[in-house]
């Protein structure tokens, strides 16, 4: 699946998006996998309360399943307007 990063999540990880092969069943499991990769991922995902997630461009929860999802995005709380 495509995994996208925005704002300081993008800056910490150093990528705007990447293709990820995963068997993770939920967003939380995907986050665990990513945290295990490298220090920059661990730093980006250190505090989930400071993060939001969208599945196929809809806001979602970290407990949500990933079945059929093509695009996951991680970002801080929004500050538009």
């Amino acid at each position: 699946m495509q995994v996208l990063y925005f704002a300081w999540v993008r800056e910490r990880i150093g990528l705007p998006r990447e293709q990820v092969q995963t068997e993770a069943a939920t967003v939380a499991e995907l986050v665990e996998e990513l945290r295990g990769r490298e220090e920059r991922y661990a730093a980006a995902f250190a505090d989930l309360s400071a993060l939001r997630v969208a599945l196929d461009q809809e806001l979602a929860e970290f407990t949500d399943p990933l079945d059929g999802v093509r695009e996951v995005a991680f970002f801080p709380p929004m500050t538009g307007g």
Partner: protein
Amino acid sequence: MTVRVHSDAFDPGAEVNAFTAAADGAGAVVSFSGLVRDVAGGLQAMEIEHYPGMTEKALAEIRDAAVRRWRLTGALIVHRHGVLAPGEVIMMVATAARHRRDAFEAAEFLMDYLKSRAPFWKKERTDAGAAWVAARDDDEDALSRW
């Protein structure tokens, strides 16, 4: 019932006039503009990042929710992304209705949801460096009104 997201500057006065002319049968038009504000002094630029695709979808959902809830004869959301200078207009919403209460409430609703539910992020560039603007707790709290 238009939603637009682009990096180009726009003229809020011209938008309000065109919106008013098109809002058939309206007795009340409310507009809101958000400006780049130099809170601490020394702001050089505001960078606005967004999530292309999701942004348009989120704004359309917010607009649809307002249209379902209030009797509106028009609704408009325009939001810029990219690099903006202090004093520039970041975004605007406008609402038109027969009665003023509907227009005011719908405009506040659009703003409250846009702040916390549309995927935009602001970064401030100052002499001292760059920093992401933190979300305000009271922006999230504002949603509990609706």
